[in-house]
């Protein structure tokens, strides 16, 4: 369009780094979310408190502050990570905190009756949790975590401030070369949109399908981030 093919290609390469970072941060976030989310439901008070502390710390500060912390402060304590992995760590821990609420609330929102009928069928609690409750929670989690992935994609833009060569950083460099902030940032926004929109659409479709098949209502009420 207003940019040459070479320039578009440069941006797309940045976008591939964006995707790579997101694909690394997402599993980390999932892992953390499950550990923290299940800890919130633990019988032991100390486990719950640790989980709450972790979640409050990572939800109380923004991802950008956490990125700076991993990038500038951790090296002072001996943990020097290459920028990309610093970014993956920060985003993974941040989104893990938000994800933990998804894990906890989907489990808690499984209908009470499912626990009751499991008792009526003489199932031990652990069996009921494994075969009846968790599967239902997991089904609802899929579209919710799908939306979290989209948010992670957007959040990778923050890594541009610590010089990770993702899409936004590539944009900054290109603006420096071309002096066309409108065309470049416009293109950058378009690429983010082109990547996120199909995913968002897919999640909405998935929600409908899940509801049609299982009747488990997938509630979606996230915070803006």
């Amino acid at each position, binding site marked *: 369009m207003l940019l040459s093919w070479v320039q578009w290609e440069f941006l797309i390469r940045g976008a591939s780094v964006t995707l790579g970072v997101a694909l690394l941060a997402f599993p980390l976030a999932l892992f953390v979310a499950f550990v923290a989310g299940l800890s919130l439901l633990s019988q032991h008070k100390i486990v719950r408190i640790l989980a709450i502390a972790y979640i409050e710390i990572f939800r109380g500060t923004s991802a950008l502050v956490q990125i700076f912390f991993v990038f500038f402060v951790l090296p002072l304590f001996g943990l020097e990570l290459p920028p990309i992995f610093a970014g993956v760590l920060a985003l993974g821990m941040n989104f893990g905190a938000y994800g933990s609420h998804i894990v906890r609330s989907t489990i808690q929102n499984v*209908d009470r009756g499912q626990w*009751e009928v499991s008792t*009526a069928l*003489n199932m031990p609690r652990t069996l009921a949790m494994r075969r009846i409750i968790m599967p239902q929670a997991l089904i609802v989690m899929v579209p919710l975590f799908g939306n979290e992935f989209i948010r992670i994609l957007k959040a990778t833009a923050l890594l541009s401030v610590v010089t990770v060569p993702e899409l936004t950083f590539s944009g900054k460099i290109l603006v420096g070369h071309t002096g066309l902030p409108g065309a470049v940032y416009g293109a950058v926004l378009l690429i983010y949109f082109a990547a996120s929109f199909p995913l968002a659409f897919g999640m909405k479709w998935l929600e409908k399908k899940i509801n049609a098949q*299982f009747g*488990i209502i997938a509630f979606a009420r996230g915070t803006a981030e």
Partner: protein
Amino acid sequence: MPDTADSKAILDSVPCVEFRGVSKSYGSNQVLREFDLTVPAGQRLALIGRSGSGKTTLLRLLMTIERPDAGTINIDGEPLGWRSVDGKIVWREDDALRRVRRKIGMVFQHFNLFPHMTVLNNVIEAPTQVLGLSKREAADRADRLLSLVGMREKAEAWPRQLSGGQQQRVAIARALAMEPRIMLFDEITSALDPELVGEVLRVVRQIARDTGMTMLIVTHEMNFARDVADRVIFMSGGKIVEDGLPETVLGDPRQPETRSFLRSILER
């Protein structure tokens, strides 16, 4: 299907279900106060009364979904849940409890089918996972029971695709798959559209006819109660107000409270 000869042998010895001095409150609301009830093996007991009268609580306590605040519940003479450990009475969720609880099955007002499993899998889940049956044995059992409730063709359907009446019939098959000796029915038609009630009650009537199971039925369907039950109890405020034969309690009750309750039901 449970063996009728089996239950007849026990009939002569020990009462099947026994509530002794059972109390239960929810917050400030005392639903049952030192409640006593004996249900002999093989009896068909219908429980009627207004909501909040404690009838559903009785079933829930029996199924160990709730714990009594005081008193004991005995099944065939064995205590359910509460045991004496080092001189103290404690609730133990363990093998002993499960061994006693195995004899009891329950069907709920809102069916509670497993939405993430097909009809067939709903029925074989507990037999395979809890009783240790092989998939083949469980599937055979499921096949028989689904035929009994008239849902055999829908074995591969998902609960979401079924009507309320169909779901409830599957729920009955699922409960029967565990071969309980005591079946609890908690207002199983109250959540159904009127035209679907009949198909479910038909199944319960058949179970009553063909087996010797002890049945405790909480219901608002008076005609059904009259058909199936050999004893009816009217409860109010956590107490038994009237207790007797269906013809008496439902046809010509002695207590004025029973009369006014029945009148209000008929006016629906």
